[in-house]
């Protein structure tokens, strides 16, 4: 299972980096989202993967398997922040498209062309 997760994170991150390096803002936004998904999956994995274990450490039950709750909390925070940032960058890309008259990331300013 570790291998599948690791490969998944790797593939998503690679796609994200590829898209990020493209010349149009739409691909860049998609790339940023994919990178943040890959990061979230990775964060989720750092607590070690457990199946069917509660996220509570019960000392009285002896050393039983439990799911580490901290990465879950971290991922939740990271997802919320990631959503806000994605929303912002989408709006920004739209505004840039309107104002600059094109969606290239290095779109020349209108006054430069004039």
């Amino acid at each position: 299972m570790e291998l599948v997760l690791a490969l998944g994170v790797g593939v998503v991150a690679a796609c994200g980096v590829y898209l990020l390096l493209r010349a149009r803002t739409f691909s860049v936004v998609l790339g940023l989202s994919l990178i943040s998904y890959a990061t979230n999956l990775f964060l989720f994995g750092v607590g070690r993967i457990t199946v069917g274990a509660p996220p509570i450490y019960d000392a009285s039950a002896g050393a039983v398997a439990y799911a580490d709750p901290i990465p879950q909390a971290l991922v939740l925070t990271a997802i919320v922040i990631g959503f806000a940032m994605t929303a912002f960058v989408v709006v920004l890309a739209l505004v840039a498209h309107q104002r600059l008259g094109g969606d290239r990331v290095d779109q020349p300013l209108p006054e430069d062309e004039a």
Partner: protein
Amino acid sequence: MSVSAHLPVAMVALPMLTAIVCLLLGAASRGKDEDVLQRQRQRQRQRWIGGLSLLLLVGLSAVLLQQTADGRVFVYRLANWPSPFAIALVVDRLSAIMVSLTATLCLFVHLAAARGKDARGRFFHPLLQLQVMGLCGAFMTGDLFNLFVFFEILLIASYALLVFGDGTHRTRASLHYVALNLVGSALFLIAIGTLYGMLGTLNMADLVARAAQVSPADAPVVRAAGGLLLVVFGLKAAIVPMGLWLPPTYHAATTPVSALFAIMTKVGVYAIIRIFIPMFGPQQGAVAGVADPWILGLGLATLALGTLGALSATEFKRMVTFLVVASVGTQLTSVGLFTEQGLAAATFYIVHSTFLTAALFLLAGAIIHQRGELGGRLSAGPVMYQGRLLGLLFLVAALSAAGLPPLSGFVSKALILAATPAAWKAVVWTVVLVTSFLLLIQLSRVGSVLFWNLAGDDPPKGPRPGPNDSLVPAVVLLSFSVVLAAAAGPLDDFTRATATQLYDRDAMIERVMTDAQPPPKTRRGDPPPTPHGFARRPGQEAP
């Protein structure tokens, strides 16, 4: 707990509450265009509330500074959980200095913006307060993930402030800035995740303690996480080779926002100091010295690049942005010496350059305003209304920026040179002195062009701008340059004590990890309060 024990959290809560109030006021002023009077009234209220809150914040930070001066360290455990489970705010001397710096700078930025620049949108003041909240939090937190969260708060406020006031060029610069920082945030999260996975904690003091005991087999992964952190903080601090986003971004921002951003690069430098000196310092066994070979070299390269950029600039404000890059290089060079004296000098330089950079940006705004359509371009321009005053202010700023006596630029650079150990003297002295000389040449050139190369007595075409209605924030910020030089002795003592405290890793761990009062009784289901009983590879502990 006495009242003063709650000071750290007040420094975060106060700007947050003010931001909410200002946000509501801004939202309430939404209305039809004819409601100009009402809108003005709401803006006036925002200004008063924001200004008073910042004034209070300056007062609180002064108390914090005074309380930490004798070596006391505030450890504020939220919800009073026992360490290391509590998400703590830790305020030592360095944090107190940075927080005071933030509060003071933001007060003057507020004053500068309240002269009319904030009227271009309804939400300048809430954004400024959020930025202050993020900065204060980032400078005080004792938890690595919380550092990430506060970084995001200050970043999203800075994204919005950057596009504040419209303008096409702002939108494009902002797009690049946002994309770069989002990638930086992803890398930061990966580094945090790796450290947590290897060490099982996020509390910085606990991380330091555990990193020292990491086994040689695990060390490469922890070192890799350290390298990632250096990349992330380097991106925020704008060091070579990740620093080229800074000049276009700061150039595009409106004047008070550029002045505010004077503190933004310091967040990166602060994080480098906070993480790399204790966690990857020489006493840290298998993970010692991850960044040692890099920081000094990158600092010198950044200093050289910033200077060359300033030399090649053909526009005044763009030159100032390159001065920011050069100052980051100087700070990092001093930190990269990895000695107590070097760190003390870096702290002194951070204080000096924050005020000076902000003053330079405000001054650039005033001068560009005077030159009408010509803007900041370095060519013969019209006679300015307040030519003498502006020229005098520029002279003071330039002297301080180039590092000539008797101002604080000279004192701080002299401290850095004095702190350089013999092995590095040849390289560091050469780079610092040559770059200072080149900056002096460029600043003289800029000053001559702006103030003496006048295009005849004919008034320039187009509408003539009126005099700047307030230069007070710029003047006060510049006067700090004189004050810092005059008070160099006591300040130097303070920064030396700061450096000693930062290098005393064991004392720091003990202060943060031992509870000031006995922890509350363990409730059912609580994790056992042993440092290693929790979050330690659950899969391996299973029978």
